[in-house]
């Protein structure tokens, strides 16, 4: 590792040179699974940067936009599905996880790259972070501009994602989100801007590393359980429970909670004000729902910081969601319930470990 870094310094800024060097040694094989999103989208003109509905590129066409990527890795690409990220579902997550788990057993495969729409990218990333049973890099990449756009970010993001997936340093770091030359952990990485290319950040907890012109550099490793350290096995899961997210705000009524409980939600995540706060009416509604068996997790709408169990949460039947964003707590709860772990004590342990 050390000597490789020194080698990289010598070869700067010639990523291309490094590529040739590794070509002699045999290129690492990266499996690319396309799922769609803005990175695979087409706009009518090169100025179309929103409301692009001119169809989608096949994953092979994305590779053709940056053919130099073939000099850094041998790609095995497949269009797994081709949808916008709002259409992503737990069933697709499960089949993605199963595909990665089975492919990761192949000794010739070094890593994985998934293209994805950015809006729910972090949810797919966290699902895979919890269910992929390999220490090989799994990198999720998207774009903020369609790949037909002027100054499209997609091709470089894709190139960088392949660099990360092919990098030995990326092993054992959980699922990674790679955009804008930055590497975020799937657990904390979140979209923080509607249009800007630096949309993905991990708030307080920062990046794990960067992809600079001289290569991939990691400064941090995540310490919570993930991927091959996870207890969740999707092959044991036949269906996913319905889990919803409810926002809190001043004077929020409790009826949404009551309605979701009656509509079959097995779990409800509160996007609470402050450290997991609910309005009094919501608190009463949670009390009823949880006494009827609905599981409720308290998270925060603030975007960073932990939620710690309080006496009021105990009174309402809420379990503290640590620092998970509400939509990520939803994924963890979904997997816990689907794995038959719905006991309060089990859930407290799970939210403490993942």
């Amino acid at each position, binding site marked *: 590792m*050390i000597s490789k*870094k*020194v080698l990289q*310094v*010598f*070869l*700067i*800024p010639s990523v291309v040179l490094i590529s040739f060097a590794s070509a002699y040694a045999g290129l690492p094989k990266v499996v690319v699974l396309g799922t769609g999103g803005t990175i695979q989208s087409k706009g009518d003109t090169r100025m179309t940067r929103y409301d692009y509905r001119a169809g989608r590129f096949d994953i092979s066409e994305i590779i053709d936009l940056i053919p130099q990527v073939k000099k850094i890795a041998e790609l095995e690409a497949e269009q797994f599905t081709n949808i916008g990220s709002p259409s992503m579902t737990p069933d697709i997550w499960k089949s993605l996880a199963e595909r990665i788990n089975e492919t990761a057993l192949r000794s010739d495969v070094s890593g994985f790259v998934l293209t994805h729409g950015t809006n729910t990218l972090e949810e797919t990333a966290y699902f895979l972070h919890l269910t992929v049973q390999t220490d090989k890099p799994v990198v999720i990449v998207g774009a903020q501009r369609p790949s037909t756009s002027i100054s499209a970010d997609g091709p470089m993001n894709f190139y960088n994602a392949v660099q990360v997936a092919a990098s030995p340093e990326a092993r054992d770091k959980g699922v990674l989100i790679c955009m804008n030359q*930055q590497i975020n952990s799937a*657990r*904390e990485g979140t979209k923080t801007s509607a249009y800007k290319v630096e949309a993905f950040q*991990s*708030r*307080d*907890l*920062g*990046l*794990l590393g*960067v992809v*600079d*012109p*001289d290569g991939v*550099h*990691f*400064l*941090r*490793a*995540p*310490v*919570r*359980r993930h991927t091959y*350290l996870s207890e969740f096995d999707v092959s044991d899961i036949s269906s996913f429970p319905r889990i919803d997210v409810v926002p809190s705000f001043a004077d929020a009524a409790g009826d949404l909670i009551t309605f979701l409980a009656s509509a079959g939600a097995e779990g409800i995540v509160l996007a609470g004000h402050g450290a997991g706060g609910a309005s009094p009416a919501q608190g009463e509604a949670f009390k009823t729902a949880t006494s009827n068996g609905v599981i409720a997790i308290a998270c925060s709408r603030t975007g960073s910081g*932990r939620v*710690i*169990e309080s006496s009021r949460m*105990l009174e309402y039947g809420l379990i503290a969601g640590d*620092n998970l964003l509400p939509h990520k707590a939803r994924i963890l709860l979904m997997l816990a319930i689907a794995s038959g772990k719905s006991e*309060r*004590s089990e859930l*407290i*342990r799970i939210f*403490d*470990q993942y």
Partner: protein
Amino acid sequence: MLNLFSNLRRLVLGSFILLSSMTMSASKSNIHVLGTGGTISGAAPSPEMLSGYESGTFPVVELLKEVPEVSDFARVTSEQIINVGSGSINGEVLLKLANRINKLCKEKPEIDGYVVTHGTGTLEETAYFLNLTILSDKPVVIVGAMRPWTATSGDGPLNLYNAIRVASAPESRGKGALIVLNDEINSARDGTKTDTYRVETFNSREYGFLGYADPDKVVYYRKPLKRHTFQTEFDITDVVSLPKVDIVYGYQEGSRGSVDGLVASGSVGIIAASRSPDISVALEEAQRKGITVVRSDRKGQGRVLNSESRLKEGTISSDNLRPQKARILLQLALTKTSEPTEIQRIFNQY
């Protein structure tokens, strides 16, 4: 991650307090606090005064008396290394401090962790020095305050309490030297002061916190990957003094005067916090005289890349180290070698 302590915690569900009193009465940790001064030891004439105070007024033993709650979980001992504002910390103090902690690590294995009180102005430099020279995986926590000890709503008492908690936490071992202020745990390598007065002044720019000292517990989400503490190659036991390394600042039309002045005054290393054409020329000349030049940057985050040709000429790049941290690393590197490729390896690894 799956250690016994956290498993135990899970079993005693929800009852953190119960657990605390259980483990604490069973075994309190031994924490040694070394005072160096700073705002946290500062005294102002009146509690509303957040400036115009005297740094390094109270000895550390007095600060500890005002946070008696630490005795719930720790047996605390202390000593005063020096009592000054952080601007007065120098190589002599750094060596004394690091040697003292290393000696205690060897001679007093019963000490579980160390806390250093420090002024915030150069706290990150001392922290990085300890990150590079303490040959132990025991927690070393550097703490300061943005408001003097005498201030109303002073941050010092809670920061000191939290620093002792972090030093006591088994999860803090092996994470390198840590900076703790404002409930936040920064790595000594990346943590930097980003504001002149606010209590949330320390952060690690794009790399973020390693974890938090929250009201319920100390919690980590990240560990640092660059070499530090017990993985370091820098043994300063026999280092008598640190080499003179200085920083020049680059700006439009930056003159070469500062470089020439440093060369004349005997600097053996110069860190360039960005450059100008004139500064570049002066640095090249300095390099030819045997002075080690490291290219850093004034922007506050991001890496500086090197090239083969530049390295051949002897120029080293600082990776993403801030100029003041690159200075510390170069001082330590120069105690071992002046070979550019070797120094570049050191900058790549630490």
